[in-house]
């Protein structure tokens, strides 16, 4: 039976695939632990910053800082935090669906991660920039992205900057989420500040040193760039978790497939042996 060899070949190829997915699962889970740690610690930092900033904004009227001003003219810039590599389940697809529903058609897109850029382009969206950020992302990598955002916002090209990313809930759950990065609003700050358990009593009579304007000028850009890097970190943590889960289920699938194929293989082998025995017996019978 030629079937026997075919089955054997398939078992071998499935086993090879499962080894690859298994290895990817290991790599992803190691990276995930680090990414998760960074994302969770970053949350505490950004909410502490938001907490301080929110107290400032109560003191200074909204007109004070350009990054907080609402603008009439200009387009929306959407920053899409997606992945550079595939094999991470439906992560990018889910994000894309959310993007198409929630962002205006004429918006400009800035992709961090190269997977979604061609897709968006094919759908007729205006992808202006594409960046790749390494896993241990550094300030140097984020700098050009931040500069584009800040300049675009300050010279009125954009009136809104939105970040679309996969919010890291836990290893099994990542949720596509859109967050408005600019203009910074007090409501956003309050929401982010309340993420951490920092006590807040809404005192407004703060002593501000050196001057309110100096403080705001120093802390606001810091907040915006850190808010951006925090969202990218969340995206990274989601990516690694999703990849780990996807690869785990792929490995399990492969294992089931191998089991099934092995059963088929044994059955086929059994049939072959039975057939050979039958032939031998018939032959001996005929010679008698």
């Amino acid at each position, binding site marked *: 039976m030629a079937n026997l060899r075919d089955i054997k070949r398939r078992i071998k190829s499935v086993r090879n695939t499962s080894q690859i997915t298994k290895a990817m699962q290991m790599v992803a889970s190691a990276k995930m632990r680090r990414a998760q740690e*960074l994302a969770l*610690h*970053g949350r*505490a*930092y950004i909410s*502490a*910053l938001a*907490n*301080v900033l929110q*107290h*400032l904004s109560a003191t200074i009227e909204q007109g004070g800082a350009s990054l907080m001003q609402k603008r009439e003219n200009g387009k929306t810039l959407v920053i899409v935090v997606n992945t550079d590599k595939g094999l991470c389940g439906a992560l990018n697809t889910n994000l894309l669906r959310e993007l198409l529903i929630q962002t205006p058609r004429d918006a400009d897109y800035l992709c961090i991660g190269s997977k979604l850029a061609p897709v968006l382009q094919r759908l007729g969206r205006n992808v202006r920039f594409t960046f790749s950020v390494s896993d241990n992302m550094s300030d140097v990598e984020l*700098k050009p992205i931040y*500069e584009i955002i800040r300049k675009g916002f300050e010279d009125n090209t954009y009136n809104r900057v939105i970040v679309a990313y996969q919010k890291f809930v836990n290893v099994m759950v990542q949720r596509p989420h859109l967050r408005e990065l600019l203009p910074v609003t007090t409501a956003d700050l309050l929401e982010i500040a309340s993420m951490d358990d*920092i*006590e807040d*009593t809404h*005192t407004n*009579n*703060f*002593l*501000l*040193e*050196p001057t309110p304007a*100096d*403080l705001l000028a*120093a*802390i606001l850009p810091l907040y915006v760039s*850190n808010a951006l*890097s925090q969202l990218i970190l969340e995206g990274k943590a989601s990516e690694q978790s999703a990849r780990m889960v996807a690869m785990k289920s792929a490995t399990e699938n492969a294992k089931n497939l191998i089991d099934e194929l092995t059963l088929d293989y044994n059955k086929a082998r059994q049939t072959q042996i039975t057939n050979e025995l039958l032939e031998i017996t018939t032959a001996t019978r005929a010679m008698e």
Partner: protein
Amino acid sequence: MPLHLKIITPLRTAVEADALSVVITASDGQIEVLPGHTSLITSVGDGELSYRSAQGKEVSLFVGGGFLQVENDNALLVTDTVLAADEMDPSSINAAIEQARNRLRNESSILSREEQTRLEAGIAQQLAMLEYRLKKRRH
């Protein structure tokens, strides 16, 4: 009632402790925060932070620039670096300073202004670290 001191960096919550007093280099010079201090937000430069814990122990740390918020006996310091004296490695600090200086010297034409300011700020911070370490070792 003691102060609740919390120091947060992007990588970790470095310190969370009850303190009887906190001394830190603020924008207008060194300040001491005691329980019952008025609400305050101030920028903080590179330098030493020391606090006396509720058990009366003196703790000293090097902190990078950032912001200090004091509100109802909660002191919250948001900064990018926190190091204890024994965590510092002078040779790597020196190497970092040297590297940054070299970049400033050799690539000044291609570096943007912001990049230059950033490098200079980096050097200033590293120098402050060295100074802090020297001071601590003399004691």
